[in-house]
């Protein structure tokens, strides 16, 4: 299957126009020594039907979480996605468009980004938001780099209760730059206040905290903000946006930058990507923000219009002095988030949040009642929590897959230092009481 419509005859005519005898002559500037003298070792092309069959066979070789009863979370969540979301995403005017560099024919994309920015500001309580980042992990890392620019300091303090993969991304970036990372241990499922205090000094640009954190626990954001600010550091909070209908926004506790993963806003889990990173900040730091930003203005006729703005921060203008190297972002995923939040509205978002919280609390009680789990701590939580299994969490998870459950995420798979029994469970509004009772029954019968 090819996607060209130019016939052999037309090709010959075109070759004559350009004065080349054949296709090979077009590549005369490629030295003979580096010409590939054999066909690519890639199988022959397939018809659409054949390709479709092959792809379906690969898809069938998976047992997706959505075909199991899934309590897996750890940064990626199985929420209901209203049908309208994908119908909007499938509009070719949206998904086949490039970055809106020509605003006269990109008002759809631009207005949507403006609306997305507004929704992120509303959820997080921040003054300004950008058009999206790649994911939560890179958004958090960019927040650390931005804090270093704002404070002219080079150390960031990150809680060990931040998602292990996000900390790895932060460390990878830090290893290649001037950033220095100090990790603060957790105690009782949350950031250890005493260890945090000990890690703070006047070299610290930012304190990076997630709430809910990797273990699902809610952090004492007010106290951490106070400690961070007392040391002259910015306070960076990673939030779960779908819970911000029920949780106080990080701004209320003094957050300077709020970031996070936005997959849960209307994006399929898709094996972990593409989701999106969101990024909100205070107005005072606008010029240090990474990524694209859309503003509202007027056209020459005075009509409302939207345009990419504040571009002197960006790589195509500032090159090595840019605030980030990001160019392509996750605009289509941000569109999904905007449609999702429009569909839910305040009432819907609140009811989804309430439902996740109530179900997670029910699930925890049900699992504890099996007698196979112990509670490692009593910290408050929202949609996700950790329990200690009295055996190996990986073996438990695998055994339950056989019975139709993706029970949760064994923490040791992500953090080799974690106890073998520690396991994360998340509940979304999709899970039913019957499913949770059934999981508890299966655990009991193991």
């Amino acid at each position, binding site marked *: 299957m090819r996607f060209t419509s130019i016939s052999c005859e037309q090709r010959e005519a075109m070759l004559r126009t350009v004065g080349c005898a054949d296709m090979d002559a077009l590549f005369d500037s490629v030295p003979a020594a580096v010409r590939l003298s054999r066909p690519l070792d890639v199988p022959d092309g397939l018809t659409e039907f054949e390709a479709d069959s092959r792809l379906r066979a690969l898809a069938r070789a998976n047992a997706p979480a959505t075909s199991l009863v899934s309590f897996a979370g750890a940064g990626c969540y199985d929420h209901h996605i209203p049908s*309208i979301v994908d119908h909007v995403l499938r509009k070719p005017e949206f998904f086949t468009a*490039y970055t809106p560099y020509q605003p006269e024919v990109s008002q759809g994309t631009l207005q949507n980004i403006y609306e997305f920015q507004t929704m992120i500001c509303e959820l997080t309580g921040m003054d300004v938001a950008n058009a999206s980042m790649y994911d939560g992990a890179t958004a958090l890392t960019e927040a650390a780099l931005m804090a270093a620019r704002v404070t002219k300091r080079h150390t960031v303090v990150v809680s060990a209760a931040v998602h292990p993969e996000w900390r790895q991304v932060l460390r990878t970036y830090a290893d290649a730059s001037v950033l220095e990372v100090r990790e603060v241990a957790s105690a009782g499922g949350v950031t250890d206040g005493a260890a945090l205090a000990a890690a703070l000094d006047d070299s610290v640009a930012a304190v990076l905290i997630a709430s809910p954190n990797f273990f699902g626990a809610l952090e004492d954001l007010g106290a951490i903000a106070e400690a961070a600010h007392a040391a002259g550091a910015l306070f960076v909070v990673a939030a779960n946006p779908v819970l911000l209908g029920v949780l106080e926004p990080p701004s209320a506790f003094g957050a300077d930058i709020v970031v996070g993963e936005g997959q849960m806003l209307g994006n399929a889990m898709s094996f972990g990507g593409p989701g999106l990173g969101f990024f909100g900040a205070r107005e005072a730091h606008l010029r240090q923000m990474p990524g694209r930003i859309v503003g509202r203005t007027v056209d020459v006729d005075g009509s409302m219009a939207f345009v990419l703005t504040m571009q002197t921060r960006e790589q195509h203008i500032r090159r090595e002095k840019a605030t980030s190297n990001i160019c392509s*972002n996750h605009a289509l995923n941000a569109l999904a988030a905007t449609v999702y939040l429009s569909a839910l509205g305040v009432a819907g978002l609140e009811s989804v949040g309430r439902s996740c919280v109530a179900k997670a609390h029910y699930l925890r009680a049900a699992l504890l009642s099996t007698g196979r789990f112990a509670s490692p701590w009593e910290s408050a939580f929202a949609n996700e929590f950790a329990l200690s299994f009295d055996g190996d969490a990986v073996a438990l998870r695998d055994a339950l897959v056989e019975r139709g459950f993706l029970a949760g995420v064994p923490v040791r798979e992500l953090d080799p230092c974690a106890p073998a029994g520690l396991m994360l469970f998340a509940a979304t509004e999709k899970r039913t009481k019957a499913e949770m009772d059934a999981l508890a029954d299966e655990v009991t019968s193991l």
Partner: protein
Amino acid sequence: MTEELAQTPSTAPARGPRKLIFETGSPESRCFEAPALDVPAGSLDDMLGGAGRTRAPRLPHVSETEIARHYTHLASMNFGVDSGSYPLGSCTMKYNPRLNEDACRLEGFAGMHPYQPPATAQGALELMVGLARTLGEISGLRAVTLQPAAGAHGELTALMVFRAYHVANGDARKRVVIPDAAHGTNPATVAMCGYEVTTIASDANGGVDLDALRAALDTDVAALMLTNPNTLGLFDPNIVEVCAAVHEVGALAYCDGANLNAIMGVTRPGDMGFDAMHINLHKTFATPHGGGGPGAGPVCVTEALAPFLPGPLPVREATGAFAWMTPEHSIGRVKAFAGNFGVLVRAYAYVLALGGDGLKAASEQAVLSANYLKEKLKGAYDLPYDRTCMHEFVLSGARQRKANGVRTLDIAKRLLDHGIHPPTIYFPLIVDEAIMIEPTETDSLEDLDRFAAAMLAIAREAAADPELMHGAPYTTPVRRLDEARAVKQPDLRWRPTQ
């Protein structure tokens, strides 16, 4: 307007008053209804340890009908590849096959959680291994990570790998050399990776100036970053010497793969001497740009650099089972989870459809189409580098500016009135009034001729009626914007008082 201009507008005119989603609907409008809670509700604020929300966020109140109409209205103000020719240089705006859109939505892919045990993810891992193998073959660089989310992310990943490699050799280096024609992400990436940028001028033919390169190279140089074919759309005939010179001082050669669409199956960056490259799946492999993303920027490297790649990598084990493996000296992760898997599925679908021959044919046609347009347009516009081009070429609007005060921006805006998306403009920076044209292989001959006719008409119009050009576009949903006002009076979010 002259008769030539009475073209169908590129996009349908906006219907009805234009509103924000926040100004649409009424407090009673609803789209979503939550199922009744089947567990005890409990006290929310108690469960949340007192952190319950005290002031609700202001989100839209809209019905499903209102949502459908709002986004249909927004879509009508957009221009995509499906709307018409989109010859945006450096961006490879080829058609996005619909099978790929369907495939990535199959429940067996879209419903996968990233932390499923590999036993339940064999199809996903097999797909990733297959795609990585294909990209390794096309690039001639066999070790591949699919983790990076975009081209710029791939650049950063590769430079981090280079840094780790140099450090492992006890060799702290300081600088990265970049030609002046480079894309902005290249120098921005260098800075993020803690290196200094050394810019070298291009030679008279638009290639790397070998003398300037040699003068810039010493043992402080970590790498050369080069787009080849370069951003003028020209293949560097000295590429072997360029890479050799880089290696001579112990530095590594990086290929920005944005222009891979010119050379698939014809020549391979690995064979040219590059040590690493990124591939923009959202360009060469037909995955949609999505109005700015998401993309995917896999990085292909030599065997020597393979131990440093970010992990985990999908691999096929001796047993035939697929699994995750983290390389020995991995730089660590650059992204959470497994990369932009949904984009990888689309790219793999594209590879399956085209096959090895089809990929090569796509590149050949892309190059032929670009050269065809170049021949048609080089009389009416300046062509600073008049050589056989690859999949794109760069004109200059300098003649029109000098003669009539018509700028490249005006030319671009006027194209909108012809129902054609403008080429990339003012890039690369080394061409005055640059117009960078990349037709891609999926435009028909009729599309190409229509674009050429529009460009020629505009060249005539620039001479006949420059004032008209300054006012263009006339037929788009909005006209030229007050961009200065956007900067001076930032309005970056809706507020209810507005």
